[in-house]
């Protein structure tokens, strides 16, 4: 079970590796993409303004440096789809990422790209992104035809569902799960909205809009019904606040808040999950560092044979704010 960390520059490499990162993933948005498609069309699920490297030479330096430390680097080509014009360009980029930069795997969503990459016989392995919304074992069986070595399960699967999937597929590929930072209120692969800076994320945007309930059947809502619906909406908006990293906040010690699966690491080790993903290519170097340290501390404790309840207590103490843990809204997984 590896700790997978986001990285967006060579300068972050040494500190993240020293802090316990065992795999890296990153993105690249070459200038030509931006010139042609602007910020309205994203190459890899992140705004071109942040979180991605700009040039192949920067990427090669990063990959070479990571390989010297024995750490693999995976690269995101995980837009939900590419048009025919884009596909020609993306396939050429993929060949350069493979041959020139030497990335270890490509993280892919679009099944059309997945199919073409599987036929291209690159050295890089294929990882299927969480954006592909692989929610069941049958879907994995379908995707195996493209020869992926790993599938990243969406955040919305429960531990029980993950266990069932791992048990059914453990001889055929690796399973990666979300561990820390950004949440998503929706099923990421079935959310058709943009996080473009002009409008922001739809889920958080909704929390600031005027709302009105309408009862089905043409009847008026009673005061009691309206009260219950309003109270539930308030709770939902509070949950969205947690999903959004506690309003993008941090603990008094400066550690990042945000959705968390630390308490589930013991279960994931038992189940046989291959990799724990820390989200946030676009995050500050400090947030990446603190995140890697938190996850690695719990992973080390589990590796040393610590009991589940002891591990959970340690995880909660690391998060530093019991009130938020106890809310239940900061957890990716119920343990």
């Amino acid at each position, binding site marked *: 079970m590896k700790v997978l960390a986001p990285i967006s520059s060579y300068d972050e490499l040494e500190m993240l590796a020293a802090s316990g990162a065992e795999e890296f993933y990153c993105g690249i948005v070459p200038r030509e993409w931006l010139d*042609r*498609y*602007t910020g*309205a*069309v994203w190459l890899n699920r992140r705004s071109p303004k942040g979180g991605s490297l700009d040039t192949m030479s920067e990427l090669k330096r990063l990959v070479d440096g990571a390989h010297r430390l024995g750490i693999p680097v995976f690269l995101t080509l995980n837009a939900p*789809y590419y*048009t*025919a*014009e*884009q596909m020609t360009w993306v396939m050429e980029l993929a060949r350069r990422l493979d041959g020139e930069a030497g990335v270890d795997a490509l993280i892919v969503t*679009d*099944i*059309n790209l997945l*199919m073409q990459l599987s036929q291209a016989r690159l050295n890089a392995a294929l990882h299927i992104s969480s954006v592909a*919304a*692989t*929610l*069941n*074992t*049958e*879907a*994995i069986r*379908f*995707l195996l035809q493209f020869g992926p070595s790993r599938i990243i399960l969406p955040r*919305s*699967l429960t531990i029980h*569902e993950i266990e*069932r*999937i791992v048990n059914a597929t453990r001889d055929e590929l690796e399973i990666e799960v979300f561990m820390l930072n950004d949440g998503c*209120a929706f*099923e990421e692969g*079935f*959310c*058709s*909205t*943009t996080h*473009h800076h*002009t*409008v922001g994320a*739809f889920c958080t*945007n909704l929390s600031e*809009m*005027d*709302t*009105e*309930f*309408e*009862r*089905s*059947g*043409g009847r008026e809502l009673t005061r009691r*019904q309206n009260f219950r*619906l309003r109270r*539930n*909406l308030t*709770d*939902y908006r509070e949950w969205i606040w947690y999903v959004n990293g506690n309003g993008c906040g941090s603990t008094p010690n400066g550690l990042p808040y945000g959705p968390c699966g630390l308490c589930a690491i013991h279960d994931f080790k038992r189940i046989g999950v291959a990799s724990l993903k820390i989200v946030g290519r676009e995050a500050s170097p400090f947030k990446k560092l603190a995140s890697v340290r938190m996850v690695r501390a719990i992973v080390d404790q589990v590796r040393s044979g610590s009991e589940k309840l002891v591990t959970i207590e340690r995880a909660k103490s690391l998060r530093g704010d019991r009130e938020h843990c106890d*809310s*239940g*809204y900061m957890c990716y997984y119920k343990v």
Partner: protein
Amino acid sequence: MDWSIHVNSEFEIRSDLSALEVLSLDTGSKLTPVVDLTRRLIEEYFGSVAFTRCAYGNEFCEHLIPSAQQLKAVLTAAHDREMSVTFLTPYVSDAGIESLKPLFELLDQDGAGEVVFNDWGVLNLLRREFPRLRPVQGRLMNKSLRDPRVTGVYASSQAPAPALVSLRRSNLDCASYTGFLSALGVDSVELDNLPQGVDLSFAENGVKASAYVPFGFISTSRICMAAGIHYDKRDKFQPGAPCHHECQTHLLEYTYTNTPFENRDQKFYLKGNSYFYVHTEAMLRALFDQSRSGLIDRIVFQPRLPMIWERG
């Protein structure tokens, strides 16, 4: 061109399903204007249309998958009215796959029916165990951006042509993908009418396109706000959590009051676990013009938000 209507029960199939009468269904006062507008524009463009097919099932939530008994009654009613049936399926967990199997067995026994899949796992199941059923790619598998907050603005502004072209298309633009679908026995795809306009040039590759009116989906989740009503606060908003179908009791209308653009009156609707936009008159006219030019094979009329469910 085919006309299909999304129904909730055998009783609706047995009733008068003319475009005029659908207004008697429980649309609700907030959505009646767009349903009425759609009905009027259908008559203006196509005259009095006859629904020869009904869509039944749900695309968004595995808790809204109907029972085998309900599906059987719908199939019988459709036979009696000489209507074809398209069975809609959602994205699913392993448990959802299990609940679909007996329904596919029923459809298979009934003859070569049509099943809309919104999950590769559902397609895999269909191909392996129910090869007589005809798979249709659902609209959730089409990944075109359809964020009504901003895509309409892109279309009306000075967005660079390559970006706008990209936003109006999807991977259906690629012959490699439509060829892949064809090899899987999928020759029809379902679509939403996009706020930025939808490019249907892929239909020239022999792919048939169905479009839904007058609601488009924005986003959906395994975490349902409505289902939270009956949980203690700490236990609310868990993925796939059991529910009492609270989504059937109400809808929530959002008004885009915090927009940075001019669309302060724009509305979005939450029903259960899914958000929807409504078509504007301009969007409907654009789609109907495309239909007249032969690019659309079927229009699916949904007189209610597509989260309907019949209590067993």
